[in-house]
């Protein structure tokens, strides 16, 4: 066959293939489904994986790493796993709300062992699918049953997933001032002003400790004032506590705001996660609580929460909750866990200190006080997008565009490199 003929045949075959795939596409019922927006944080990890620079650092995703940069399985979790396996438990359905021992232990962890709310049976506590699932139950419950308002006020900025979860639940998402980029600290005045203006009944979402993404927390006196303002204005406190124990190393200190609001007579909602403080990220253990006005009301609230959970996923995954319950309800394991969690918090605090010291050593003239003032997994460095881009391009250091770094991703072997790089892009 002549070349030109061959080419014509090949071309027509190609056209034919294109046409059939177009036809297939056009006739597919899924053809109008558009590509969703890429997840910013996962995108950072994808780019990091592709980078071949041996000095690369991933400061994107908020998961704890040990000083070798590896995931850390808590020794207490390993012990609890062995106990559970050897006890030969079956896999029968838990109830819709999970197991009572898990729910009670979670409530006591948050509210304190002597919690009068728990003693008086006022807490409607259910297992949720880690923090996300607990927020989702809460969002749906409020959208359906909280009649005073459909407005949820989140701090500016907040965890990126808060807005989609609450919106998808059917709520209006608004915000109040929180982060002061001038000081890289808490805009207390702005927060109180904005919260004071919220109409009666509005729901205020509060990060109980280790604010995500800024690492900026109110001081205890500031919490007290916010609590009073919200009492005066009759606003509803909705706590998200994803880092209890992980922030300061002390579970009671980290729960200060939650306990103070309760003591002051607020009826609160609370979402807890065990992803970070027990390293149970992928086991999806969390809890959602509403503190009710009476034990009778709690029964009614529980019955309605079950109606929300059943058409979502019927009942929760038990493995992670069993690990949590085993740890919290076995005295030896519980004390050991408290040490494990303090160990993680201490390492992060130490990385903050070392980063700050190294920046001084580099001769940086900027004020890096906020690195050690901030708390928890993340640090809002104050770096601008173009500086972030340079950090990535020139030094293979990966972080999100807003200048947030996951301190847990820093190790003693690379903290000096990080300081050097930050100094280079910001001097």
């Amino acid at each position: 066959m002549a070349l030109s003929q061959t080419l014509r045949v090949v071309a027509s075959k190609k056209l034919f293939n294109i046409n059939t795939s177009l036809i297939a596409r056009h006739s597919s019922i899924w053809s109008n489904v558009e590509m969703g927006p890429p997840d910013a944080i996962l995108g950072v990890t994808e780019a990091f994986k592709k980078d071949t620079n041996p000095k690369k650092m991933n400061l994107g995703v908020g998961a704890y790493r040990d000083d070798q940069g590896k995931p850390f399985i808590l020794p207490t979790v390993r012990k609890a796993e062995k106990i559970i396996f050897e006890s030969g438990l079956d896999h029968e359905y838990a109830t819709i709300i999970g197991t009572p021992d898990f729910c009670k232990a979670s409530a006591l962890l948050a509210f304190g062992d002597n919690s009068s709310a728990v003693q008086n049976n006022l807490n409607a506590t259910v297992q949720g699918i880690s923090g996300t699932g607990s927020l989702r139950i809460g969002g749906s419950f409020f959208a359906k049953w909280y009649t005073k308002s459909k407005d949820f006020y989140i701090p500016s900025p907040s965890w990126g997933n808060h807005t989609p979860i609450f919106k998808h639940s059917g709520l209006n998402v608004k915000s109040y001032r929180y982060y002061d980029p001038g000081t890289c600290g808490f805009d207390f005045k702005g927060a109180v002003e904005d919260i004071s203006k919220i109409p009666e009944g509005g729901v205020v979402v509060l990060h109980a400790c280790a604010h995500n993404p800024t690492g900026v927390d109110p001081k205890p006196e500031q919490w007290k004032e916010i609590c009073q303002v919200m009492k005066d204005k009759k606003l509803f406190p909705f706590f998200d506590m994803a880092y209890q124990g992980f922030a300061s190393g002390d579970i009671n200190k980290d729960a200060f705001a939650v306990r103070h609001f309760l003591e002051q007579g607020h009826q609160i909602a609370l979402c807890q996660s065990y992803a970070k403080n027990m390293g149970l990220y992928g086991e999806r253990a969390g809890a959602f609580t509403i503190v009710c006005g009476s034990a009778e009301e709690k029964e009614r609230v529980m019955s309605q929460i079950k109606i929300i959970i059943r058409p979502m996923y019927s009942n929760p995954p038990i493995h992670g909750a069993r690990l949590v319950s085993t740890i919290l309800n076995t005295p030896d394991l519980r004390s050991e866990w408290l040490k494990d969690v303090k160990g993680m918090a201490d390492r992060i605090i130490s990385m903050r200190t070392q980063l700050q010291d190294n920046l001084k050593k580099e001769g940086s003239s900027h004020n890096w006080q906020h690195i050690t003032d901030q708390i928890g997994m993340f640090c809002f460095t104050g770096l601008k997008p173009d500086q972030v881009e340079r950090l990535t391009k020139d030094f293979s250091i990966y972080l999100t565009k807003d200048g947030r770094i996951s301190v847990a991703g820093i190790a003693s072997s690379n903290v000096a490199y990080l300081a050097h790089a930050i100094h280079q892009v910001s001097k």
Partner: protein
Amino acid sequence: MSLFQGLGFAPVIEVFDLNRRFYADESPEKVNLGLGAYRNDDGEPWVLPVVHKAEELVVSNRTLNHEYLPICGLPEFRQAATRLALGSESVVIKENRVLSIQTIGGTGSLRLAAEFLKQKLHLDTVLISSLTWDNHSGIFKATGYSQVNEYRYWNPGTKGLDLDGLLADLQNATEKTVVILHTCAHNTTATDPSPQQWKQIVSVLKERKLIPVMDCTYQGLVSGDVDEDAYPLRLLASDGVEFLIAQSFSKNFGLYNERLGNLAIITKDSSTIDEMRSQCEMIIRRIWSNPPHHGARVVATILNDKSLYQEWKDQVIIMADRIKLMRKMLHERLVNLKTPGDWNHVLTQTGMFVYTGMTSPQVKYLTSKFHIYLTKMGRINMCAMTTKNVDYVSKAIHEAVTTQ
């Protein structure tokens, strides 16, 4: 004045309420034939030996950690789950025309399907079978579908499938109506279409351009053969239909509380897969973010190992055979007692349940006099029957039917 003053009690969920009343009952003769969970001949839950083996492997594997799974779940599990449903030789898998997503149990799979179809394809109408699992309508209503209607399924006269009614109702449905069908072991009626009848159903689904969501909760537990039980899935796939499969691994692996499910979306065009995945990820992110490890690791370990897979299939046969034996024993006794009515359906119905056809007063009598718990529609869980209680249950049914 409390914030939740006006909040009334929610209606009870029947099977859980049955459980609650059963546990509160102090009669030593009580029998729980309500909730659909497998029991061995001692009436105890059965952790499959192969599941225990796989769990040991998972727990002792020091290379595994608890980090987040991808939003769509564990890849080794998803692929194996879809292979189980469609068959490893399926042309759909070979041509990369199926999106597989790990979900929170079968319920999570149905919920994800409902959300995806509503939000991304803007569908709003769903047809569910009459006498179906009560949570089917719950899931689609909670997702916001404005039209949740029924298609005829059960013929009380013949105590069998109302095929004509079913086909007529599908014929009358508008294009792009979502239709939930039970792959096998229909819950509540335990009555399945024959292969020939499935061919007729699929033909109408295609003609009317309806969107089938195949609820696949009991694969293996009907005939004992996972491929035979998946017949309608293979038929739809080979017939070029675009459809969804909502799989549960609660019953056939006994992993009820580990919440393992898989949603498979079958497309004509593999280029739609990435877009569908990204949209499903967005939906999942707002409900559970990413799924749990444990169940997925256990099942992936089993399905991806030749000898463990064979062990699992053998243990599924054990469960299916025990159910068949209980059917035989119950049927024999009712016939010997000369209990009024035709009890042939006890033998011919499939899966975990028997839809007895008993009336509401008869059901109430069974519970109040004999402490036997079953759903008010007269559905009994054959897995909870044992050689020790089948005589008692038969006599109770006989007395209920003859006196009420």
